C-alpha cells in the first residue's frame, strides 16, 4: 500500500538554495521573540514578502514565463522549511504562493495567468481562500454564496467566514454556487477571483483567543464582478477545489507549527547542568518523530514533483503532523512544570502559552482531523 510514497533525499541543486534563504529568514526573524516567531505563517509582513519576491523565492514552481523560478516542488520545500523553522513572518504571500498561483496556472486563462502570476511572484499581490461559510465548514459542498450572470459579468451575494488574511489580501478565490441548489452537492459550484476592494464587498476581522486577528468574515452584497472573474470552468469548481486542497495540505507547515517552541524548549534543557531521564526521552521521541514526519513530507513533495495530486498521502501526513504539533505544547508544559525548581524564562513561557492555546486550530484549519481520516479511509477502500 502507498508503494510510490517513499523516502527521498532532497536534490542537491535544491538544497543549494538553503544558505541564501536562511540569511533572509534570519534577518526577518532577528528582532522577534520566540512567541512572535511561533506565529510564523500567521505573521504578516508585506515588505518581507516583497523582499522574498525580489530575491526570486516566490513562485518557485511556476514557469519563468510568468515570473516564476521554474524550479519545482523540492525547491519550494527547502525555502518553505527554512522560513518556517526560523519563524519568519510569511503570512502575506503564503496562500498565493502555496495554492492560488498553482490554481491560476492550472485552470486560469492565458490572460488571467499574465495578469496575476507575475505580481504574485514579485510579492506584490496577496490572496485568501474563500471556502468556509457560517453554515458550511466540513460540509464544503453545501456553500450558499451565489454568483449570478449579469450582462457584464457576475453578481455575488452571500458570506464567507474564517477567511485567513481577507482584511489584508487583495483577492479572494471563492468557491460559490453558480447553478442549482445545495442539494446538487458537487455540481453547480464554481471558483471566482474576487477583488476585495470591489463595491459590495465588506471585510470584518475576527479576533482569535490569543488576541490576534488573522482571519475575517467577508460579506457580498450585490458585489459586481467582471466576466473574467470566473477561474476555470463554470460549474466544475468542485474538481478544482479538490486539487487546490492537495496543495493546501501537503506542505511542511503541517508538521512545523510548534517547531519554534520545540527549539526553545531544547535550548532551555541545554542550559541546565543535568537533564533528567524523562526530559531526555521526550527530546528523543520528538526528534525521531520529527525526522520521520519530515521524510514523509518530502515523500509527499516527491509525488507533487511527479505531477501527481497526493490527496490521501497529504492527509496522512497532515493528520500525523498536526497530532505531533499538538502533543508538543502539552508534553513540554508537563516537562517544565514537573521541575518547579528549574526557572523558565518569560520568553519560553510566552511561546508555550501561545502555542498551547492556538494548537487546537492545527487540526481544524485546512480540513479537520475527522474529515482527513475519512479521506484516508476512502483511500483504503472502506468507503
Amino acid at each position: 500500500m502507498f508503494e510510490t510514497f517513499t523516502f527521498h533525499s532532497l536534490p542537491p541543486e535544491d538544497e543549494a538554495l538553503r544558505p541564501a534563504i536562511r540569511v533572509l529568514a534570519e534577518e526577518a526573524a532577528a528582532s522577534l521573540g520566540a512567541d512572535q516567531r511561533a506565529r510564523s505563517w500567521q505573521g504578516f509582513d508585506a515588505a518581507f514578502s516583497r523582499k522574498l519576491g525580489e530575491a526570486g523565492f516566490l513562485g518557485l514552481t511556476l514557469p519563468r514565463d510568468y515570473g516564476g523560478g521554474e524550479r519545482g516542488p523540492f525547491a519550494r520545500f527547502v525555502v518553505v522549511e527554512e522560513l518556517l523553522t526560523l519563524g519568519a513572518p510569511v503570512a502575506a504571500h503564503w496562500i498565493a504562493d502555496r495554492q492560488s498561483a498553482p490554481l491560476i496556472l492550472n485552470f486560469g486563462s492565458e490572460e488571467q495567468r499574465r495578469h496575476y502570476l507575475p505580481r504574485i511572484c514579485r510579492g506584490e499581490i496577496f490572496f485568501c481562500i474563500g471556502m468556509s461559510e457560517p453554515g458550511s465548514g466540513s460540509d464544503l459542498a453545501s456553500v450558499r454564496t451565489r454568483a449570478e450572470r449579469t450582462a457584464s459579468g457576475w453578481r455575488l451575494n452571500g458570506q464567507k467566514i474564517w477567511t485567513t488574511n481577507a482584511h489584508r489580501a487583495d483577492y479572494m478565490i471563492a468557491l460559490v454556487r453558480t447553478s442549482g441548489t445545495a442539494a446538487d452537492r458537487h455540481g453547480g459550484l464554481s471558483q471566482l477571483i474576487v477583488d476585495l476592494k470591489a463595491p459590495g464587498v465588506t471585510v470584518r476581522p475576527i479576533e482569535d483567543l490569543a488576541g490576534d486577528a488573522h482571519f475575517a468574515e467577508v460579506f457580498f452584497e450585490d458585489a459586481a464582478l467582471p466576466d473574467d472573474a470566473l477561474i476555470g470552468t463554470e460549474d466544475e469548481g468542485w474538481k478544482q477545489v479538490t486539487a487546490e486542497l492537495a496543495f493546501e495540505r501537503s506542505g511542511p507547515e503541517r508538521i512545523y507549527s510548534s517547531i519554534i517552541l520545540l527549539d526553545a524548549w531544547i535550548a532551555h534543557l541545554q542550559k541546565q547542568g543535568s537533564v533528567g531521564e524523562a526530559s531526555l526521552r521526550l527530546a528523543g521521541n520528538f526528534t525521531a518523530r520529527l525526522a520521520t514526519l519530515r521524510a514523509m513530507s518530502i515523500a509527499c513533495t516527491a509525488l507533487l514533483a511527479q505531477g501527481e495530486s497526493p490527496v490521501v498521502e497529504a492527509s496522512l501526513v497532515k493528520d500525523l503532523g498536526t497530532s505531533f504539533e499538538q502533543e508538543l505544547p502539552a508534553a513540554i508544559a508537563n516537562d517544565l512544570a514537573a521541575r518547579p525548581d528549574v526557572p523558565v524564562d518569560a520568553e519560553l513561557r510566552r511561546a508555550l502559552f501561545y502555542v498551547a492555546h492556538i494548537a487546537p486550530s492545527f487540526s481544524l484549519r485546512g480540513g479537520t482531523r475527522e474529515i482527513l481520516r475519512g479521506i484516508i479511509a476512502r483511500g483504503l477502500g472502506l468507503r
Partner: protein
Amino acid sequence: MDRTELLAPFERLLESACTPAVVRAIEAGGDAATLWDAIEASGFLDALVPEAQGGAGLALADMAPILIACGRFAVPLPVGDTIAARHLLALRGETPPPGPIRLTGGHAEAAAVGALPAARAQEIRVDGDTPSLHLAALVRAAAIAGGAQRLLDASLAYANERVQFGKPIGRQQALQQQLAVMAEQTVAARIAVEIACAAGLPLSLAPAATAKIVTSTAAPSIAATAHAVHGAIGISAEHDLHLYTRRLLAWRMEHGSEGWWEARLGTERLAANVGSVDWVRAAVTG
C-alpha cells in the same frame, strides 16, 4: 537498484515457503531446515557481505524491502539477524558459522524468552552503543514495519467482509477512523525504516534510534487496532492474526524498546547546539 527487482523473487520465495502453516509448524518445534535451506539457496543471507568476500555487496538502502518482508511473512527464523551477522563478521574478516545466527544481548533476551520459541541458532552478542546494536535494532524495526503492513491488509480485508447491522463493519465511521490511524502509523513505520536504511553502514545511533522509536511506539497500537477490528475471531488460536500481533509486541522489546532509544537519541540531540530540523538533517537523514 530497483526496489521491486530485488523484492519480487524474495517475496515469491516466502509466499510459497513461509506460509502461516509453516510458521505455526516451526513455532511448534517442527522442522525448520526446509525453510532455512530455501532461504540460504536464495543468496539473500549474504546480501550485505562485500563482493570481495563472496557476498552480494548490496547497500543497506537496497535491503529495506527485504528486511520488511521478513516481518510481513512472520519468518520464524532469524533471517534478518543472519544477514546482519554475516555482514558484521565479514567486517572482522571472520567466516560465519553455517546456519541461522541470532543477535542477542541484554535487551533481546528479555523479550525473546517465553514470547516466541527460539529456533535453534548460533548466537552473537550485540551490546553497548555500537553499530552492531544499531543494526540489530533496525532489523527489528523493519520486522515491525512488515508485520504492521500484514496486519493492516488483513484488517482492511476483514472490515470489508464482516457484516453486522446489515453492512460491512468497515462502513462504520468509528472503525474507519481507527483504520486510518493504523494506516498512518504503518506508513510512518516503513518510512522510518527507509530513513535508517538510507543512512547506510556502519549504522549510526540517530537513524537506528529513529527507526526503532517510531516502529516500537506504533507496535502495540497497531496490534490493538487489528484485534479490535477482528473481534473475537482474532483471539482464537486458529486464526492467523496472533502470528503477527504476538511478534509485534516481542520485536518492540527486543534490542531496546522506544524508551531505551529515546533516552539515547535525546542525549545525542541535546549535545548539539543547533535547531531541531538542522540536527535531523545532519544526524538522521544525512
